[in-house]
Structure formats: C-alpha cells, structure tokens
C-alpha cells in the first residue's frame, strides 16, 4: 500500500525518533511511504493566528503538490500538521476559496487529497499484518494519550470518539499491551504555552503524568510530537510542580509497535528520549500509590 508522507518540521527536528520509528515499522507492515515532493511548512502555531490566507496557502501548497504527485491519501504523523492540513483541506472544499488560495500558493489544488493521521493508518493493519508480525508482545500497562488534535474538531477529523477515543487503545491491545482506563486521554498538555508559559505546561502535563502513574501505567503512549516533548522534555519542571519525581517514559505509538515487531532500539530512536525508556521485561507492574494533584475548587 502506497501512501504520501508529510514529515513536517517536528519529525526532522525535535521529534526525529517519531519519524525514524514510523519509517522503520512502515515497510514491515507492507506500507510504502513516499515523501510529498518539495513540501513546506504546514503553518502550525503561527500562521492561523496572523493571516487566514497564509494559514490556508501553506497547507494548500502541500496538498496541491501531493495531488500532483498522484497521492489519494497523505499521512501527517505530527498532530499539528495533521490538524492544519485537515482543516485547510476542509475549508478548501469551497471552490471559490480554493481557486483563490491555489493562486496565492502558485500550485493548483483540486481538492482530491485526503489527510490521515498515524492512528488511522495503523488501524488498517491492526487485525491483519500487525497482529501476525508481533514477535515480542509489548506486555506493559500503558496510558494511551491522544492529546487534543487527533480527534478534534470532530466535524473535520471524523475520526474516533472525540471525548473518549479508542483507536490507540485497540492498537495497543493488538501488540499485547494493557491500556489503562483513565480520564486524561484528550486533556490539554499545554503545548500552546510550551515556550511562553512553561509553568502552565508543568501544571497541565503534570496532572496528566500523575494520573497515568496513579492508575498503574508503565508507559505513556502518544501520537503527537508536542505531547511527547511536553511530557518528556519538561520533566524537571513537572517534578517541580508535583513535588515528586516520576520516571514513566513517554513513547510514540510507532516506537511501541516497533518494539513489538522486533525492531532494534537504535532504529526506533529510543536513545533520544530525555526520560530513559527503561521498561521492565514483560511484566505487568502493580499500581504505585500516588497522591492526586487536584484539590477542591480550584481558585489558585
């Protein structure tokens, strides 16, 4: 199965291991990834706050190039890229707007490409090739953390249940993991403040981390570079906020699947994590007693 591939900046920079691990597992599942030729920035974080036309023209150029290259579907592993491309694609279904934006982007787009996220792509292989190719079952209790972008806004993403998504949990079950039932699957990690208000990131991500640990998770599984960076890279600030240290690692779904498929750790980029990925061998640990964070009416 051939699929257009849009790595975006994250997968080449701060989240290289996401790109590496996804590219490592793809051929094993029978998935051929072809990079969208001459792709550009999706415009996330800045463009849509400043200039609507720019925020559409940037993804429109990518969509147009993908269309020209003959891709019916393009996978964007980064959630922010996925969101920008999917939202723009949705808005560009309006023909007048599409013509105008195509002119600005200097690439014609006819609106035929579909943007998919990693979970959507992997789910297609879940019951068949993935299940068959697991060599080392990932026998760990995991907290599947989806973040905000993958399932929202539901009108545009049309993917999974927006309040309590299941697709990642299902994939984890296929590779032998035990997903925990928890309430923070789609809570905000604070990515919007990851530069300007790191104290808020520590608070929001800290609550997520704490709940996962409290409910006995051994690893948090994510499908978004911002979530991973906030939960992994900001661990010191989180420790400061919580007043206690958690050593739970934060893995990309492609890394967890890679481990189950027997891919070596180096190819999956596990050495790039800040919090070491040290998982006990095939055991299911008992939940550790941990104090909750929230208390009463939150006025502070």
């Amino acid at each position, binding site marked *: 199965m051939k699929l257009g591939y849009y790595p975006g900046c994250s997968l080449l920079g701060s989240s290289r291991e996401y790109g590496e691990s996804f590219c490592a597992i793809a051929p094993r599942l029978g998935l051929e990834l072809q990079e969208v030729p001459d792709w550009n920035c999706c415009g996330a974080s800045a463009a849509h706050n400043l200039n609507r036309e720019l925020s559409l023209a940037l993804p429109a150029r990518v969509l147009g190039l993908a269309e020209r290259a003959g891709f019916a579907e393009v996978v964007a592993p980064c959630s922010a890229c996925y969101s920008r491309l999917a939202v723009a694609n949705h808005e560009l279904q309006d023909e007048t707007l599409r013509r105008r934006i195509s002119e600005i982007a200097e690439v014609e787009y006819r609106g035929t490409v579909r943007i998919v996220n990693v979970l959507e792509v992997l789910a297609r292989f879940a019951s068949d090739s993935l299940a068959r190719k697991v060599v080392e079952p990932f026998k760990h209790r995991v907290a599947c953390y989806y973040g905000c972008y993958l399932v929202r806004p*539901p009108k545009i993403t049309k993917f999974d*249940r*927006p*309040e*309590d998504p299941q697709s990642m949990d299902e994939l984890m079950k296929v590779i032998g993991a035990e997903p925990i*039932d*928890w*309430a*923070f699957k789609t*809570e905000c990690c604070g990515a919007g403040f990851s530069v300007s208000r790191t104290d808020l990131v520590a608070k929001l991500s800290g609550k997520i981390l704490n*709940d996962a640990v*409290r409910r006995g998770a051994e690893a948090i599984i994510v499908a978004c570079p911002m979530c991973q960076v906030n939960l992994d890279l900001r661990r010191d600030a989180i420790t400061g906020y919580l007043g206690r240290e958690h050593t739970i690692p934060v893995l990309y779904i492609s890394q967890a699947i890679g481990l189950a498929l027997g891919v070596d750790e180096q190819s999956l980029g596990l050495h790039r994590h800040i919090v070491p990925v040290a998982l006990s061998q095939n055991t299911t640990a008992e939940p550790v007693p941990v104090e*909750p964070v*929230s*208390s*009463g*009416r*939150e*006025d502070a």
Partner: protein
Amino acid sequence: MSRIGVFVCHCGENIAGTVDCAEVARASGELPGVVVSMDYKYMCSDPGQGLIKQAIKEKRLTGVVVAACSPRMHEPTFRRACAEAGLNPFLCEMANLREHCSWVHEKGETTTQKAIDLVRVIVEKVKRNQPLYPIKVPVTKTALVLGGGVAGIQAALDIANAGHKVVLVEREPSIGGHMAQLSETFPTLDCSQCILTPRMVEAAQHPNITLYTYSELESLEGFIGNFKARIRKKARSVDEKLCNGCGVCTQKCPTRKIPSEFNAALGMRTAIYVPFPQAVPNKPVIDREHCTFFTKGKCRICEKFCQAKAIRFDQQDEIIEIPVGAVVAATGYDIKHTDFFPEYGYGKYKDVIDGLQFERLASASGPTLGAMKRPSDGKEPETVVFIACAGSRDPAKGIEYCSKICCMYTAKHAMLYKHKVHHGKAYVFYMDIRAGGKMYEEFVRRAIEEDGVNYVRGRVSRIYEEDGKLVVKGADTLLGARPIEIKADMVVLATAVVASPGAEHLAQKIKVGYDRYCFLSESHPKLRPVETNTAGIMVAGACQAPKDIPESVAQASAAAAKVCGLFAQDELSREPVVAVVNRCAPPVYSTCVGCFLCEQACPYQAIEREEIKTRDGRLIKTVAKVNAGVCQGCGTCVALCRSKSIDLQGFTNEQVYAELLAL
C-alpha cells in the same frame, strides 16, 4: 366557454416583496378564458374573500384561480368562499406564488414572469375542472388512544366522559408512564403518584374505556372516522381473569436480578413481575426473556405457588381487531442515558445518574424508600453536582433543541436533595435558566435563595473518578470563565429528552409525519397543534415535543376535544379526489380490460372487482372498481393502467397535460 377569475394575493410582503403582483394580475387578465383578474394585499382575509365572491356572482365565473400561498393551508378557505358564492368548490384552484416563487427567488422581472407562468398553468387546469361532490362516510364513535401515560390517560378520560367509547393501549404491563416514576412535581412539590394513581384507577374502571396493557398497535388501516386498528395483546403468561393480584408469584420467583425498568435500573425485579405496587392493572407479567422456564425449560415455581391457577406458560399473543373513528397518539418520550456521555464516563461511573434515576432515589416508593443513598455504596452523598443541558442544545451531540423540562426538574432535584440532606452541598451547572411558566421562576429562585443551591453558570467538560470521588471539571463563566473542580459524591445529569423508542416505526404505521428527531409532527405549529396531517389522528404529550406535565395534560384535553368534535357528527365528508374507472355505454361498458395491475399497485387495497352481467346473469366482463371510501387519491393506479381507463378526479390526465402544455 370558460369564464375564469384570477385573484392575486400579496400575502403582505411575502409575495409582493419580490413579485410585481399588479403586473401578474394585468398579464393574467389577458389569458384566454380569463374574464376578471385583480390583486389584493390579503386575499384570505374577509374583504379578500369578499372580492372573490362578488366576482363569481357578477361575472358568472366558471372557475377561480387564487394565486397565493401553498394550497396546504388555504385551499379549503378559498373553496369554502367559492361554495358560499354558489360555485362548486372544486372549480377553485390555487397557484402557489409564495413557496414556489417569491420565497425562493430574488426580486426581479424574471420572478414576476415565473409567477405569471404559474398562473397560466393553473388557468389551463381550471378550464378542465369538473364539479365534484364530497364523499359522505359514516363515523365510528370509538377512539383509540395510544400510550397510557398522563397524556393518554387524560385524553382517554376526557373522551370517555363525553360519552364515547375509548380503547386505551399501553405497551408496558401497567399504565402510568414516566409520571408514575416521578417523586415530587414542580412547582408545587406535590407527590406525583398521589395525583396520578387515582387517575389510573379511574381510567381502568371507566365503563367507556377498554384498557389493553402489555399491548401494541400492530397496524392501522382506513381513514378518518373509519379506521381499523389491529392490536397485538402480548402474551402475559398470566390469565388476567383468574389472577387476583396476590403477588405470591413475584415473591417466589427465583430470578431476581433483572434491572427494574420502573426503578430506572437502580432496583431489581423478578422475571414474573408487576412493575410497581400501584400498577394498573395489578396483574403480573412473565418476562420471557429472563424467565428460567422460558430460557432453560424448567422452574415453574410461580405456577406451583399460584393459588388461583392463573399462570399460563402456553399463552400466545392475541391480535384484536377494533374499528375506531379517531386516534390519539400519546406515546411519550424517553431520556438519553448516561452512557451517551463519554466525557461524563460513558455510564461506567455508578454515581453518575440521570434525572429519572434521581426521581427514583428521591421517591418514597423507590429502591431506597426515599432515603438519599448513592448507588455505588449506599452512602449519603455530601456533595451532589447537577448538570443541566446534558446533551440538549448541543449540536455536537446531534440534539439541537432545548429539552424544556430540565431547568425545572433540576431545580426540584437540588431542592429535594437539600430537603433530605440539610448539610449537603448542591451545585447546578447551567447554560441558561429557562423557567417560563406559572410559578416556575419563583420556584427556581426558591431553590437558590431559600435552599442555598449553588448555581454555577458554565459547562462541565469532564468527570472522572479519583479516590472514590467524582472530580467534576467545569468553568464558571460568570467569574471570568475560571476553571473549577468539584469533588462530588454523586452527579445527576439532566439528560436530553428524546423520542420514545419505536416512535419512528409508529409514525410510519399510523402514517403521521415526524421530524428529524422522531417527534411526531402536528399539522400546524400554531393553529392546529394537536391534529396531524393525517385526518382523524391527533397527538398529545411529549411524543410531539418535550413538554412537562401541565402542557401534556392540556394538549391531551385539546386532542380529546378534537376527537369529541369529530364524534359529534354522524357523517363526514371526504374530498372527492379519488380514482375512478371509466364506464361507458354497452357493448363496451368500460375500457378496462380487467388486467388488475392496479389491484397490485394500490397501497390502500382500494381496488375491487366488479362483474358486469347481462339481465339473465351471464357474465360479460370483470372490471376494476375503486372503493371511494378507501382510496387516498395517490394516483399510482392511474400511472399503471395500460388501457388508460382510470383517472384521478381533480387531477385528470387531461388537466395535467393541459398544465404541462401551458408551460
């Protein structure tokens, strides 16, 4: 030679805003056969009708075209006016300049031109109209009331008290509906059962009411005044005549763990059961899905203990056919259950309950006998959060309407909780408080001011469990959208009111319209609120839209009044828009060749076979004949007839072709 009058209505600005009505009238006047044409601001008003009547008399009109709105509302109005002026009402037709033209086009010359075209088409039709005479049909003075909730009971009692027979059908084993489940009612806090149960008994004992519980409508055929209802009386597995309601069977039944529907799954019931002690009739039913005898083939304990020998394991469903003249649909509502809300735990938290479950908790006849005990561990909840608009007014949830009753019952719930747990804390998250109604606003103020319920304006984004508490995350939008978290012991969701399960199926069965939410459609939202577009079928209560008890009862009485009005007549007249098979002189008799394709095509079984015989009884030919009482005028037979022997009165082939050729 035709003498047609054309009357162009402005409909205020509805038509005149985009169509040049004076120009339409002028152009119509030049059409061949038109002898008079004029325009007027409101043709349906008294002076407007006066213009038509005057023209009929003065110009000796042979046909009238009213160019105005859709015929749905005002065709009867104008036909009546024509009849009053001595013209056969079926010589009057309407050209729809509003829905078909002015409302859907911009102002301009082409719009006016289209209006003129529409008038020309109808003028050509009217030239070929024949005088028709209404069909007289008798009225069966028995009403069928579907649903034995408060609306159905009220309608049945009103009709019965007016001296007419009523058949009351309820699908559950007892009448009473949701109202029987309620604890107290707003805004008076009088006990729901205390006011309802006497009505239930009255309905059951009324000499004019025949009650069929545990029964459902199987089919409804016929038309106003002459319906034929088939009712499926589901097998109770108990002989109702022998059973004396002693209740020993329900005490002895070993299958005791079935969630009780009446207690909203907060309590359990047995496989042979009476829904609640005050049920009417107080006769048990065997739930065959759960009964050990029906699932595993042995047990029969109830049979052994029944003194009256009333258990009938071999009882079959019974189909009862009843002729009725009118139908009142009062099939009620349901509420969304907590599993509809992923953000509130998908129904997995036992202490997140819905409004009906809270009613059962607060009710003296409920599983806790009215004591405030939360479902998970039976502890008294110290902090309770009530969430209004759970699902309602939420396009993302697919329910855009306001459920109407939640603001009031949430205030009532919070109040009842505070009355039972004085030191407890009650929070209500709300969007707006909609308390329109007599003494309603005062009731909500009382909850806030006298009972100290904390009203927080904001939505709850998530509920999750932590250390035995339910963490309710929300925002207080009156305090700068500040996020708040409340650790609650119990959460009550005022979940959206939705159509009763099977409402869509029922609507199709009785051929009544319904909206996208499966609420049954009234004929006109303001002027015909209890009738439906199917003559002889009324709606009452929450099957039409979410409504509270006073409104349901008012609508039920209104529906009953409509039924009584219908039953006040001995004969009804029906529009003669029916199919007719032609007849001609011997030796042809009819061009019908007797293929009877029409018989197969007719959805109403209106085609009969008529034998044409000589005087000495020799059969000449068998031809089709339309039963005018049954025919609904759909025209399917006309389209199918190979020898063009059938025509639809009022819409003959000649008329329709004339319309097309005039375009």
